[in-house]
């Protein structure tokens, strides 16, 4: 039995999981900052 597919699959899945876990706070931060800035802009306009 060739071990190569198992090794490749292990490293590929690990990379995907680590990328997902690493990128999600970056995406969340961008979305949160956009929300907060929009809210601030709306408040400034209302005043």
């Amino acid at each position: 039995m060739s071990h190569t597919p198992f090794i490749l699959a292990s490293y590929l899945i690990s990379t995907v999981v680590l990328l997902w876990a690493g990128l999600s706070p970056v995406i969340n931060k961008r979305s949160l900052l956009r929300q907060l800035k929009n809210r601030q802009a709306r408040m400034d306009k209302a005043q």
Partner: protein
Amino acid sequence: MNPIYLFFHKTGSPPWFYQFSGKLIPWLWAGFAILCAIGLYQGLLIAPADYQQGESVRIMYVHVPAAWMSMMIYGLMAIWGFIALVWRIRIMEVLIISSAPVGAAFTIIALITGSLWGRPTWGTYWVWDARLTSELVLLFLYFGVIALYNAYDEPRKAARAASLMAIVGAINLPIIHFSVEWWNTLHQGSSIGTSGNQIDTSMLWPLLWMAIAFKFYYGANLLSRARVRLLKQDHRKRWVQDLLAEENS
């Protein structure tokens, strides 16, 4: 004031923590990238194949450090949970809930890579062996902490419930560690320990590089998540308003 006390005192302040962690994160990512590159180079290209496991031993360079991380992170969550419950330090509460998804990610990696290693070595992807089952329970505990936290609207109440669950769930850590000694398992015992190592240095080094790299990854990821959570919780406070105004200007 003693510089160490002063550091811990400052860490309790969200604005200071936000600024300090922002400076630290790029260095942690850089450390992770360098150590991971060294570990992968040694593990995939330099280290020899095992005389019994063959080439599949290369899966160990990601499986073992991920399994170590899954336990270490839960242990830290339990310690921080205790501190959060006793001294009510909000940063600790933020660190617990920010750690849980990273710990779950490492547990998923440990379970999947272990399963992929098991197929060529044991002839099966999964057995209900004590080590594998207790590691799966650890994944459910991580999910439990995340779900419990999200079940509350008030973040501080949510953090207290999550802290309690992290502390109670820590009972699973010695079960995972000693499962290979307490029960007759298919999973082998520890090859690395305080009483000596049973693996050759050519295989030990890539394992250690990857283990340190994962710690850098955890640090960077944890601080990134904690910063977002602090911004979310404090979005009405002055320091966040000032930060936004600074970014807009």
